[in-house]
């Protein structure tokens, strides 16, 4: 069980959180024309890197805030977490 530092609440066990996937995906702007290929890339395709991954977590059994984490997918090391409007200290 991972130990994750919520940027609002501090360190908590993984069972308080739910995983939200790749945090670098940007939703296309509402109302803008978009090709089927670009839209499909947004909806369906994600990279599955071995190593550092910027991802979303939701403190669902806590403060209910979404935030970003930088985690190694192979070792589970979490390098940093930050609020949505912040950048990692790297």
């Amino acid at each position, binding site marked *: 069980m991972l130990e994750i530092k919520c940027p609002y609440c501090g360190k908590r066990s993984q069972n308080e959180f739910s995983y939200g996937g790749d945090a670098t995906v940007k939703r296309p702007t509402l109302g803008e024309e978009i090709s089927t290929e670009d839209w499909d890339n947004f909806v369906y395709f994600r990279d599955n890197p071995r190593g550092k991954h910027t991802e979303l977590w939701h403190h669902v059994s806590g403060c209910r*805030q*979404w935030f970003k984490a930088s985690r190694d997918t192979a070792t589970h090391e979490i390098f940093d977490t930050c609020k949505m409007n912040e950048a990692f200290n790297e």
Partner: protein
Amino acid sequence: MSNAYRTKNSTGLINKNKKINFSFNGHTYHGYEGDTLASALISNGIHLIGRSFKYHRPRGFLGVGVEEPNAMVQLHEGNKSEPNIIATEVELVEGLKAKSQNCWPSVQFDIGEVNNLLNRFFPAGFYYKTFMWPKSFWMKIYEPFIRKAAGMGVAPLQPDPDRYEHNYEHCDVLVVGSGPSGLASALAAAKNGARVILAEDKANFGGSLLTDEVTIGNMSGKEWANDTVAQLKSLPNVILKKRSQVFGYYDHNMTVMIERVSDHQENPSKYTPRQRLYYIRAGEVIVSTGSIERPISFGNNDRPGILLASAAKEYMTVYETLVGKKPIIFTNNDTAYSTALEFLKNDITPVILDTRNNSNGELVKEVKQKGVNIRFNSGIADTKGHLKIKSAVIGELDKDKENFTNLENIDCDCICMSGGWTPTVHLSSQAGNKLKFNEEIDAFVPDKKRQRESAVGAANGSFTLNQSLAEGFQVGFDLSNKFTDNNIETNTPNSKEPKYEKHERLWCMPLPQGKKPKRFIDFQNDVAVSDVELAIREGFRSIEHVKRYTTLGMAGDQGKTSNLNGLQYVSNIEKKIVPEVGHTTFRPPYTPVTIGAIVGREVGSHYLPTRKSPIHNWHEENNAVFVAAGLWQRPRYYPKESENMNDAVNREAANVRTNVGICDVTTLGKIDIKGPDAPEFLNRVYTNAWLKLPVGKARYGVMLREDGMVFDDGTTSRLSENHFHMTTTTAQAANVLSHLEYYLQVVWPELDVNVLSTTEQWSGIAVAGPKSRELLSKLFPNIDLSNEGLPFMGLVDTNIDGIFARIYRISFSGELAYEVNVESNFGLHMWKKIMDVGKSFNIEPYGTEALSTLRIEMGHVAGAELDGRAVPFDVGLNGMVSKKKDFIGKRSLSKEAFTSEDRQTIVGLVPLDKRTKIPEGSHIVENDKVASPVPKLGHVSSSCWSVEYNNPFSIAIIKDGKNKIGKNLFAVSPLKDISIPVEVVSSHYVDPDGERVRS
């Protein structure tokens, strides 16, 4: 015979004043307080405890603790029965019942032993090779046969009656193992002010200090251990846990420990759990788990009575038990001589065989001085004795130690073997530590750590007491400094122990000439030297493959005594050094853990939390039959007298259509939405338009996922300019909230909106039926409930008995209906009030079944239709999709596959005979007479008995549904083996124009 095998001196930890009776295989014996099942049996002269896994060979005790591979027994009887328990880990308790497993009819005479005579037909990989074909035989014939024949113990069929608890415990430093290095590091860390947990698997703290004759400071090892434990006990920042095994090391320094709380108690109190599972997220973990002695492989080295020299010593020193009276000690190193000295204390002179050419170690000298003849350069070739060792064939080794010379047979009743020591690196390895091979001790030790874990003492390959203590004090102090500023360092005391000479690198004896007795490496999995040879001959090279092919080091044992000997043998054959061969992965749990302990209290109704509406008790009192809706308990129907479910549901539903019904809808998800951008947000979340919804009005909305599938639906109402009340389905309430939060926090943080779950703040009561208006007008005489005063999709706030109530005119049943919302605490009050006034209108409560009937008849979609595979078009919700604005998932709807005309869409079905109910999940086919596979048009999602037309009615999702209306098809249920001719009709079966809700 009784207790004939006890030592002369009572210097161990046995209380001879307290006799304990127990039974083994139906015979009654006694032991004493402080005994384990193993020591009590051995003291009664019993070594034969079970049969081996594959060949059913008679087996006895090899070890004295967790390392024991053979002595697995079935404990207790009935629902408390438990298989595969290691007898060396069971503390004796009055009335304990144990029996051998894997034998029939008895452990002395076991039919399965024929496998041993046929052993040349059961080589490694036997099962893989033999039971390959015919394929169909595997499930029905081979697999059950093998299971029965190669069984371990038997799991009870009844539920486990014992209680198990889960705890979270916290500390700066967790110390695993209480030998010299563990005690030292715990003391150093604790004195420096760190919060410490010290965990010891056994019933006594001290580890090797309880068996070794050493001096620390001016005390014996045992005294120093007791003194250190007393000091630790006096410190408030220390938790001492004995009978506690840390069996798993997971990510981010999460360790899991099992404590045997009451297994050893004769009459535990009713509320004491049997075992407790601890989750400990430690700041630092000190692995002081010691080391395990290595066996030696020689012919028939698995007979009962052949055991590890260290085990024999611990049986004597701690359990005051003699493993035999005519011992042979067989070793490649000095430590086994301490076992010889213990025998000598009991006036027993062992025969000593040492593979080495000589040794001048201090213990060796001491044994020599006592006049014992030591046979150097000697070994054991083979043994005899069926159910217990009777004699050994011994001989001198030639110069290369590859052959025996001068074999002779000598009598014995036990053999104590020692092949040196293996550091217990399991926890470090589980933590991700890359182990390295230490050639000085011929074993793997922890190297580069991945987590906050430090091995000390024997577990780190430091085999002398001096090293162990120094490491323990140093590491304990250093690590505690990370957590405190005290900087209090504890001095390492001086210590004295015998000096040892080096072991010999020899763990497998040559075969006696012309014979091929089995030389076992892995006792638990019945893997012999010949099996490893075969695996390599057949081309398995990777050590992981050799492991799986031979089963070496697998299962509950995790190779505690076998791993290194197996690797060593592979490296000998391959002419490689051990580090090149590598090692297999150590996996948790380190020792077997009862499933009940892992499950804890989360059994039966405690498996998940139960949610009840504030009106729940009323439902109970009124004979409701409940159904789980997610975590919620909802009334399913309210049977009267002899009514069955169908009768009750039809009565309840019909009463809504003709009079008025009342339904508890508290479980619907409710979300409060506030903020200046709330209308814009809803406009993006829902498929329809929201900007112009007037205050005081509700609107039905559908939301999609980005992939275009319908996610949820419900009504949302505008309470004021910037304040909305959203309802969701019961099942999706939590997911919808997370979904909204995701878009507000991650995607559109510029929107000024707040969302908050208010599901539990409101109690909702649906009042539905043609008489609902009359009823509520009587209850709320001050408000205008006429069609003009409160039109469909309107809402009004009011007061009754000083309670705030909000009345929505919304309907799920398709009838004229209202939903009264009050604060949860007043839910029951309001419900009773409505029931009271409703009496004169023939009001009756209705449950989820009638609710379903009503919505199915009306063609309203619910979870069964919105199953994550439907776009709005499929379920008749196309009218809800705005063409003007963009919203979540809209772009997906224009994808080719989602606009195809022949998609499966919603229709109604009526059986041609108007009688046969159509099972949900049935397949819809055009022709049920053609050979399978029959082309499938779709499936039945929901079925009911239409109370309006008094015949069955179903909703189905079928290919090109709209154009199939009026056609006859078949609903086929292969599960129920029926085929029902049906007519396709509109899904809006009752009141298709929706006149009633607007009346």
